[in-house]
């Protein structure tokens, strides 16, 4: 017979109370685990799909000239005498610490050209990289595979009357229009896109690029850090994050995360209150029993230990069960929050399981501290009405 045996025997006797405390903590722990896992998996899912969002880092030449805007973003210098980046320099991006997180690098050369009677902006791009950097493009026709071929923006096609399959003359060079973009709502609609080499040749900017777009995967790499890494290898360029995209994406998750933490705190508070109220009731119910213990020579600390041992054992069970219930709930709910493509199965995380176990014990014991103190402070003579 030990204090632990007394605690276990009491839990067995008062099963309903024990189950009530267990349920309170279990709901709290599983909700927290469920929400944290859900937020984490949503983050993973969104990070995984970053390519779908296109470029999130821009590299533009350092310039003191007027700014050129593209898609609402500042691109650095403007017009004919703008400075450019040497195309070979972009290879240095492969050497940065987080190079594994670079999904695509899209060099772009820009320059004005004449198409018929219209002055338009020509963009030389790497069409393979563009598939990743501009996943929203819908092309009527084909991507240019040969050198002297171009793709027109929706507005360019409309204004010039040129359609897919037509041949156009730009700067005296005959080019095949392989496709026309569906309207994107961006400045892409007013451009003519040519393969990088073709555009460089037409614009007489061989081996030079006006800017480059980078699609970085955020998993394990904060965008600002990657911006700083790229800046180090390209000192002559301005490297900037497309803040709206990054911030907007993270803010959405951030709001949900804050909401989750708020709900978790509330559920845990309710769980703790359930433990507190139940343990207080249990102590009141056992007034005579505690009096007997005290009459037998149990110290106040012995009584506290019995109450806390009971709370600790229930909390430990709630911690373990709560983790697995939370994990199961996350697995069940994840497809609903990730539009049916839950990225990977939510797997057992020993750190989170350990944290849930410890947190549950700490919460259960904390909520039982006052009832335990109350029990220890019971006047043994008052508690033992028989004497």
């Amino acid at each position, binding site marked *: 017979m030990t204090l632990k045996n007394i605690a276990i*025997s009491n839990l067995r006797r008062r099963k309903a109370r024990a189950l009530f405390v267990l349920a309170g903590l279990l709901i709290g722990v599983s909700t927290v685990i469920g929400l944290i896992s859900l937020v984490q998996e949503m983050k993973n899912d969104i990070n995984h799909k970053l390519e779908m969002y296109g470029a999130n880092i821009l590299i533009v030449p350092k310039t003191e000239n007027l700014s050129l805007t593209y898609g609402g973003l500042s691109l650095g210098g403007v017009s004919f005498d703008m400075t450019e980046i040497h195309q070979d320099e972009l290879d240095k991006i492969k050497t940065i610490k987080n190079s594994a997180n670079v999904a695509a690098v899209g060099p772009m050369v820009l320059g004005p050209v004449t198409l018929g009677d219209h002055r338009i902006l020509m963009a030389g791009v790497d069409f393979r990289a563009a598939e990743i950097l501009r996943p929203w493009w819908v092309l009527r026709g084909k991507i240019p595979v040969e050198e002297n071929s171009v793709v027109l923006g929706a507005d360019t096609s409309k204004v010039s009357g040129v359609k897919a399959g037509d041949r156009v003359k730009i700067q005296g060079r005959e080019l095949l229009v392989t496709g026309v973009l569906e309207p994107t709502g961006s400045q892409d609609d007013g451009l003519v896109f040519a393969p990088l080499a073709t555009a460089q040749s037409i614009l007489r900017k061989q081996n030079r690029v006006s800017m480059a777009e980078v699609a970085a995967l955020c998993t394990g790499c904060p965008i600002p850090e990657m911006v700083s890494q790229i800046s180090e290898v390209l000192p002559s360029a301005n490297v900037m994050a497309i803040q709206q995209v990054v911030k907007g994406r993270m803010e959405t998750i951030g709001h949900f995360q804050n909401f989750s933490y708020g709900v978790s705190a509330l559920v845990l508070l309710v769980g703790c209150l359930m433990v507190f109220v139940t343990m207080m009731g249990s102590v009141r119910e056992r007034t005579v029993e505690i009096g007997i213990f005290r*009459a037998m020579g149990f110290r106040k600390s012995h009584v506290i230990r019995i109450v806390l041992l009971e709370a600790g054992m229930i909390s430990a069970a709630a911690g373990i069960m709560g983790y697995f219930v939370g994990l199961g709930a996350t697995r069940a709910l994840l497809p609903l929050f990730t539009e049916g493509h839950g990225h990977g199965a939510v797997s057992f995380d020993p750190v989170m399981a350990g944290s849930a176990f410890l947190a549950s014990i700490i919460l259960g014991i904390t909520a039982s501290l006052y009832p335990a103190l109350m029990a220890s402070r019971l006047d043994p*003579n008052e508690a033992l009405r028989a004497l």
Partner: protein
Amino acid sequence: MGYMNAENLIKQYGSGGATVTAVDGISFGIDTGEFVAIMGESGSGKSTLLSVLGGLNSPTSGRFSVDGVDIYALTSDERADFRKTSIGFVFQNFHLLPYLTLAENVMLPLAIVKMSKKEKLSAALDALARVGLQGKTARLPNQISGGEQERVAIARAIVNRPPIILADEPTGNLDTRTGAEIMKLLSALNHERITVIMVTHSNDYAHHARRLIRLSDGRIAGEEKAITQGGTVRGEG
């Protein structure tokens, strides 16, 4: 000076005009191995006095010492240790824990003693054998009679081998025959040099004691010493 000494013990409840004096200036000494019965009407202060003697109820004033130690000068923990090592309580309503077997109930006082599990069980079985319940150790309290429950309560009181047993109306809930058996058991323990102090309202049971203290309104109204147990008594009060 006896083994246990009460010096002008006063215990009051309440405050101001609502003060009730349960124990009013009681002094006596009890020697080792005495069997003392405390008698009195309901409300005479006998149970309050027993709780003070058991280290459970601080007197308002006065001094109570056991073996020269002022019990109420001790800290709460030290007083708990005193109860653990020196006092065995036998309660009128037995106060056995219904969810523990008889052996487990008897082992309760050993839960805070450093002993092996085997030693604790052995001590509990010895104590149960001592009160004649060796064959029922695995039963629950509700599976035995009232007299047997009282025996378990006595076994629990002696499992720690305390030098003092305090019994509050140990026969109060028992029939005459069972009550007599319990008294015999307490007498037998007393013969083993255990000091027994018993509160009772029954003259028949009181005369098993070697000394009888009568209380009235919180004061000692009389004291008697028995010449032979169960036999003639000589009034001294």
